[in-house]
């Protein structure tokens, strides 16, 4: 069995290695799933925000978090017209359509918002609509009349007139049991509610569609942010981005570092001297401030950042470490034997020196990946992240900008933080176990 | 009333645990070392001689599985001594050790004078001045100029470093010095020079030596008695004269025949085969499958027999009655 197979076999004994590997596998599967189900262009498009998120509440927490603590906060409900309940009556000049939108409401809290989405199809004259609210205890509250030209969103929550009439925010007042009571004592009335949409269509083939969205306080698997974007999108898409960044940066640096160190050790003389001086200078240069400079003055594109990270990461402490390990190898008799049968310098460096050190590279490689993942997140947090990319760091950045913790939106911070931690944990556990297997202790390499 | 020998070892055993079994490196060793006597333990690689050196001074590795037997120093049993007691009473007081490739074991960042003085300071609690003075004397003893006290190991040649390590072993004036391959990596002239020194030290200080080596020629420079080890056991224990001129055990004979000699015309002969693994020694005589004189009885393990005065052999050929 060659030493790689042997090493992997030994790895099996370490539960931390298995746990770490499983975690990483999970993240990889999640990435694959994400990339397949939500194409990249679509993700970027959606992350830009805007109309696509209209039906999401603002700053809603995840549903399961609420349910776990025994709560019964309202989740978002979308009420569409029941075809069978529509009644239509013709008259001279058009027809009258009556569309009741009924729904049950059992939550313990008030909805966060109330919107009606109407879309009309017509040739010349736009339909006319009258909205009426029906509470479970039989009250009827008129909500106003509107002319629907094309697609129209009627924000009931921002109807100031209604607010004055109800002496409460509309989405609270419309659901309160005792409208006249003091604001602090209002409770949610549970039961069947209805929004009556009475429309007048002026053309024979005019069409009207209505949808009522009762926005919840909790929404979906991961909640939403201030721009109504589902956090799940960024959490999911953040995974492949984080892994890719980490992997690319790690590969770019470790492999290059090793090769450069080996070249320096083999050629000695001024080649080695130059490499060492470059490394020493580079080690003193602070990475983060340079990245900040590049990001602020030039571009925050993730490829630029990746490039700078790799460039500055090549001539790092790794060079010193590999050099120390390669120096005794250079003096090994078999290297001299290789020269004596005519092996070229490149062959000696790549095939006779570097393979001796590869086993040590592996654990370093694995433990380095989360470092770059965290770096990317840190950059985003500092506002230097690629603003168009949905990443974990971006979520944190937004959360910070919007004072999430101050407002009690803990999920906004915890969700990306937990994912970052799991990533770090998975790679660290696997990496440390690999270290124990592949790093010689007192044995010589 | 005769004095007990300086060192009496009976049935010494040392076994290591390795992945897949136990290695019986030292498998029942008996010998004595008297005062002012040099015993050479001769053996090839894999016979367990380095493990023997470590076992005698209790420098045991982490994976030791079994360590037992009797080690009496001047008549006093030391096997049951605690580590601390052994360190105080025996190590470097009565017995010191020069390990294999010792010259590479010098601490590179400490001056050699300090390193030689160290045993005096740690084992005997002497002050720095007195210890340094004694270190200077030890340097003199091994033939290194006192100027070198202030030097670092890398400033000395291989031969000088070996002398320094020897000085370190002698500085506490122990009764017995165990040396494991003290001159194997050195030049011919340096080897001869160090052996000369050892002879002188033995004569002047009355020290006993156990010299462990595979080099037959060097061993004859110092030996009063020779013990030949094979596969964890001693197969011949004899005085030097008998061993070098008329060895009794077939392995001894073949070994002597395989050593190329400067002043002899005959070609040396090699020994076919390989020594057995210490993890799985054969039942019966361990040399049997390489021995040209083997016969049926060799399937049983022979004991030590004494065909002549001062010569013990682990071989059925020399049992009373010989080949039956």
């Amino acid at each position, binding site marked *: 069995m060659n030493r790689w197979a042997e090493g992997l076999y030994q790895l099996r004994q370490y539960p931390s290695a298995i746990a770490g590997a499983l975690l990483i596998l999970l993240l990889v599967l999640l990435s694959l799933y994400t990339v397949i189900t939500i194409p990249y262009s679509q993700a970027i498009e959606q992350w830009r925000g805007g109309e696509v998120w209209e039906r999401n509440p603002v700053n809603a927490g995840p549903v399961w978090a609420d349910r776990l603590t025994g709560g019964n906060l309202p989740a978002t409900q979308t009420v569409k017209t029941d075809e069978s309940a529509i009644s239509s009556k013709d008259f001279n000049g058009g027809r009258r359509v009556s569309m009741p939108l009924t729904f049950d409401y059992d939550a313990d809290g008030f909805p966060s918002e109330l919107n009606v989405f109407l879309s009309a199809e017509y040739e010349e004259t736009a339909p006319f609509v009258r909205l009426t609210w029906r509470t479970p205890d039989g009250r009827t509250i008129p909500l106003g009349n509107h002319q629907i030209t094309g697609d129209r969103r009627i924000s009931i929550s921002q109807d100031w007139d209604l607010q004055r009439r109800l002496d409460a925010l509309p989405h609270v007042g419309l659901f309160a049991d005792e409208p006249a009571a003091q604001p602090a004592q209002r409770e949610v009335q549970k039961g069947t509610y209805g929004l009556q949409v009475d429309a007048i269509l002026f053309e024979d083939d005019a069409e009207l569609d209505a949808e009522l969205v009762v926005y919840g306080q909790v929404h979906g698997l991961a909640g939403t942010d201030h721009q109504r974007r589902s956090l799940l999108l960024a959490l999911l898409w953040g995974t492949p981005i984080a892994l890719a960044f980490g992997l690319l940066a790690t590969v770019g640096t470790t492999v290059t570092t090793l090769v450069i160190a080996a070249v320096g050790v083999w050629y*000695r*003389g*001024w080649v080695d001297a130059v490499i060492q001086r470059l490394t020493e200078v580079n080690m003193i240069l602070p990475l983060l401030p340079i990245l900040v400079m590049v990001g602020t003055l030039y571009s925050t594109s993730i490829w630029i950042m990746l490039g700078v990270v790799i460039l500055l990461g090549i001539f790092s402490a790794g060079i010193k470490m590999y050099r120390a390990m390669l120096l005794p190898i250079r003096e*090994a*008799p*078999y290297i*001299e*034997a*290789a*020269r*004596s*049968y*005519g*092996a*070229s310098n490149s*062959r000696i460096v790549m095939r*006779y020196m570097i*393979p*001796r050190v590869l086993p040590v590279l592996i654990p370093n490689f694995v433990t380095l990946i989360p470092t770059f993942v965290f770096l990317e997140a840190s950059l985003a947090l500092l506002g230097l992240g690629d603003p168009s990319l949905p990443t974990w760091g971006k979520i944190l950045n937004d959360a910070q900008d919007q004072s999430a913790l101050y407002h009690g939106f803990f999920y906004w911070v915890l969700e990306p933080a937990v994912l970052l931690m799991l990533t770090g944990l998975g790679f660290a556990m696997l990496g440390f176990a690999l270290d124990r297997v592949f790093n010689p202790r007192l044995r010589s390499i | 009333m005769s004095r007990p020998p300086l060192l009496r070892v009976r049935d010494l055993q040392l076994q290591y645990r390795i992945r897949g079994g136990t290695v019986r490196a030292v498998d029942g060793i008996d010998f004595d070392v008297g005062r002012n006597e*040099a015993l050479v333990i001769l053996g*090839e*690689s894999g016979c367990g001689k380095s493990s023997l050196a470590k076992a005698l001074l209790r420098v045991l590795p982490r994976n030791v599985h079994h360590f037992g037997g009797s080690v009496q120093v001047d008549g006093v049993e030391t096997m049951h001594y605690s580590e601390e007691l052994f360190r105080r009473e025996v190590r470097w007081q009565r017995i010191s050790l020069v390990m294999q490739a010792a010259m590479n074991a010098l601490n590179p960042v400490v001056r050699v004078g300090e390193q030689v003085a160290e045993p005096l300071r740690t084992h005997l609690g002497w002050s720095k001045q007195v210890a340094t003075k004694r270190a200077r004397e030890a340097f003199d003893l091994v033939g290194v100029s006192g100027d070198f006290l202030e030097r670092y190991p890398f400033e000395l040649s*291989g*031969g000088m470093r070996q002398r320094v390590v020897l000085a370190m072993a002698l500085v506490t004036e122990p009764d017995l010095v165990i040396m494991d391959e003290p001159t194997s990596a050195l*030049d*011919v*002239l*340096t*080897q*001869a020079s160090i*052996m*000369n020194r050892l*002879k*002188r030290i033995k004569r002047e200080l009355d020290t006993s030596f156990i010299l462990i080596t*595979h080099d*037959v*020629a060097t061993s*004859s*420079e110092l*030996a009063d008695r020779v013990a030949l080890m094979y596969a964890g056991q001693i197969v011949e224990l004899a*005085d*030097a*004269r008998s*061993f*070098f*001129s008329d060895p009794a055990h077939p392995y001894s004979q*073949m*070994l*002597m025949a*395989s*050593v*190329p*000699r*400067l*002043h*002899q015309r005959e*070609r*040396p002969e*090699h*020994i076919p085969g390989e020594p057995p693994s210490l993890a799985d020694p054969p039942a019966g005589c361990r040399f049997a499958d390489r021995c040209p004189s083997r016969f049926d009885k060799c399937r049983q393990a022979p004991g030590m027999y004494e065909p002549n005065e001062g010569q013990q052999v682990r071989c059925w050929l020399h049992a009373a009655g010989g080949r039956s």
Partner: protein
Amino acid sequence: MTAIAANTRATEHTGPVLSVQDLHTWFELRQWGFLRVGSVRAVDGVSFDLKRGESVAFVGESGCGKSSLARTLLGLHRPSHGSVHFEGHSLRDLNAKELKAYRARIGYVQQDPYGALPPFMDIGRILAEPLKVQGVHDRPERERRIEAALEEVRLSPARAYMGKFPHMLSGGQQQRVVIARALVLEPAMLVADEPVSMLDASVRVEILQLLRRIRAEHNLTLVFITHDLSTVRHFTDRIFVMYAGRIVEAAQVDDLLENPQHPYSQALLAALADPDADNALHERAVPGGEAPSLLTPPPGCRFHPRCPHAMAGTCDVEDPPDFEPRPGHYSACWLHR
């Protein structure tokens, strides 16, 4: 095929296979990678000829330059002065491609069998490397040559060994692999630097016998580098004794061992002895002092500070030339004048 290889295959080169004239190999000491601060004169004026099929030994202590000489012959160091002619071609005039072909003509057997084999390659691959480097791209051809080499060193059946890794073999077996690797390119000359000093006593003989047999079968020229005089008698024809970068004595083996002429050789022989119980009874005569620094060697004869016969005014002033006190036996010592 390059000029060298073509030449030697086509014509049997007459004359000495190796001719070394006044060879100097100096190593420059540089500070900071480029500042020259001195030269270590490892090989400082060595001349000799070797016939095809001869087996010679270079004997001396560490620091005498024998290993540096070996490396120069192998093409690992460029000569600083003087010339090395191998099969009629000068080593100094070779370009990179010719140098590579030259290296295929000489096999190298090293001292440390374990260090000489890369631990992460199996035997088959270790032996394939020289062939791949020298352009043998045909796999069946390579395998044929590897098997032949393994059979040659008596590691049989070859197939069984090809998949093993160095750490699975004993010291003797590892050294056989090293020899096989030196043979796989079918060289004209083998340079063995302390080939048995790290092996057990009983194994040494085996390996030396192996080398002797291979030399006879292939008419190889064998250059032994060793400090162990006791092995040279039975395995070489001629000895060169080196001291401080120079050859101080050269003779047929038996003649040198029975009648050493140079004080240094005499000291070496006096310091060695065959195993004998009487050795313990008296001290050996050993010249005092240490081998000289090769950075600043002593003036005149380099051995004079340690020589019991040194003559002031002669030995410390001028380097002795080679004298011939006995036929075919050369010694560089003023005593022979």
